[in-house]
């Protein structure tokens, strides 16, 4: 009897302490997650400017979305960007990591050079890349034009750099090119992962006469699949939220001709520039479903192609 009351008193004390310590998160979740999610759902069915109280319009916002040309274009742009930038980033980062893992001298220096671009403040990076991508005097086109001239001298067809951010066709590739410069964090993750690949497997493969390429394909990749999977999921989630670079580089216009108007930019424009907050909430709801769906799908199908080292 005495023991059990003492025990229950201890339990009560623990619960009280636990709640006390967890209080910041409980308040935070209530105020900054639970309430906003319900408000989001409600606003998405309303006409809401943020100034006057919301006005119920049922599915009105969703009906408008279906016919909104810029909205559809923004989805296309976002999918285009993500579908190329994420796989390209994985291939580049993995190649760099495999090169670095070849026990080279000065590995730390190389690793730093590949990593540092990824920590450059986003806006500073965007400003720098606007200048690098300048069609006439930017470093990238100067380099391309130089090779173009060289090729002409050799009797081959000459070529010159595209208009990048001023061209409808090349503005998205420009953003993708810039994103490839920032793959450093993935390189570090892959490099850590490569340490887990058992060396005996490489030796066994060599004895069987496997080439370097085949060893990469049959030994390295299966072991790296959890890391690749992780960076892919994070990349897709990040891709759908891609905002700052494109916003800064186009001065918030998403130009030329909406060719860089990303989903998040259009959401922001509707919410905070056009004050169609209800409309923006309908968009946000869709963003949430897409991200949730992508994440779940990737996790569900992961068992088929991800090798977790026999676990």
């Amino acid at each position, binding site marked *: 009897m005495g023991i059990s009351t003492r025990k229950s008193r201890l339990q009560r004390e*623990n619960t009280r302490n*636990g709640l006390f310590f967890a209080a910041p998160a409980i308040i935070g979740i209530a105020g*900054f997650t639970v309430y906003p999610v319900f408000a989001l759902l409600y606003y998405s069915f309303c006409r809401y400017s943020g100034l006057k109280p919301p006005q119920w319009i049922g599915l009105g916002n969703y009906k408008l979305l279906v016919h909104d040309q810029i909205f559809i274009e923004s989805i296309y742009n976002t999918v285009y960007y993500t579908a190329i930038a994420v796989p390209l980033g994985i291939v580049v980062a993995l190649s760099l990591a495999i090169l670095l893992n070849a026990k080279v001298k000065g590995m730390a220096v190389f690793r730093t050079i590949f990593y540092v671009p990824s920590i450059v*403040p986003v806006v500073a990076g965007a400003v720098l890349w606007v200048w690098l991508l300048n069609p006439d005097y930017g470093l990238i086109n100067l380099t391309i034009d130089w090779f173009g001239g060289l090729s002409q001298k050799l009797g081959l067809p000459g070529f010159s750099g595209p208009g990048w951010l001023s061209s409808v066709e090349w503005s998205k590739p420009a953003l993708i090119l810039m994103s490839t410069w920032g793959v450093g964090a993935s390189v570090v993750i892959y490099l850590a992962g490569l340490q887990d690949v058992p060396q005996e497997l490489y030796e066994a493969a060599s004895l069987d006469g496997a080439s370097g390429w085949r060893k990469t394909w049959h030994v390295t990749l299966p072991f790296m699949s959890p890391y690749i999977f992780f960076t892919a999921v994070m990349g897709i989630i990040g891709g759908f939220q891609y905002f700052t670079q494109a*916003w800064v580089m186009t001065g918030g216009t998403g130009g030329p001709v909406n060719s860089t108007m990303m989903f998040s930019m259009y959401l*922001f424009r509707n919410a905070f520039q056009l004050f169609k907050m209800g409309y923006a909430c309908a968009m946000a709801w869709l963003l949430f479903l897409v991200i949730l769906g992508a994440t779940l799908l990737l996790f569900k199908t992961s068992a088929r192609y991800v090798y977790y080292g026999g676990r």
Partner: protein
Amino acid sequence: MAVASRRARWRPITPDRIATYAALIVLSAIFFMPFLWLLSTSVKPAAQIMVIPPQWIPKPFQWDNYSSGLTFVPFLLYLKNTLIICSANVVGVLFSSSLVAYGLSIIPWRGRDVLFLIILSTMMLPYQVVMVPLFTVFTFLGWIDTFLPLIVPSFLGNAFFIFLLRQFFMSIPKDLTDAAKIDGCSEFQIYRRIVLPLSKPALATVALFTFMYAWNDYLGPLIYLFDQSKFTVSLGLAMFQSQYGSYYGMLMAVSTVVTVPIIILFFFTQRTFIQGITLTGIKQ
């Protein structure tokens, strides 16, 4: 450790290794070139910026780009604002996330695992999804055009860092906290005197990444700050870019000033950085 032992071994020079070095040198040159371009442009006189072929070493060095760039828009003020927001965020996240993580790992109580799951699931909800309703919350509170919407949420815990710290706290031997308890320490004393001092590496990671995030953040300040005297460096630089986009010398000078502190921070905390990425990247 592993690296040192490998380095000690002598390796024959094979065509493979030469190719590896060649590839690494070419690729790192490509990755490094934008930085040289940034620095070179930042000290170029306007007349030497748009010339073909490019002049990598300007004659003379135009250091004025820095002083005029930084006064053209009040960047020192923006730097101050950014530092206020950054340090408040670091303090807030360190304090609240460690407190919550303690409640979710050291104290045994019913409901803590449920709460932990709820906290984890909030990570699935990106900021942009809830930014409109959050804006209305902060409007209601009258916090628009103040630093509060950018600071206060950090005092209410960050799901990811709570997760990280909880995993770390779980690895602290239970005997240690139990012994302190028998000696009559309160939970808060155990948190303050035992758990926090033992968790310095994890706390350093949290502080570093919070600082970086706040320094980089553009969307938050863009939504909440309107008065130009309250701008952060990110907002200020973007405004500079959109209004005076052709002043490349000054733009690059200011971009350098925004970038250099982060790179210096990286070199001083490299180990924490690399650990942080692998920790945050893999242990999830």
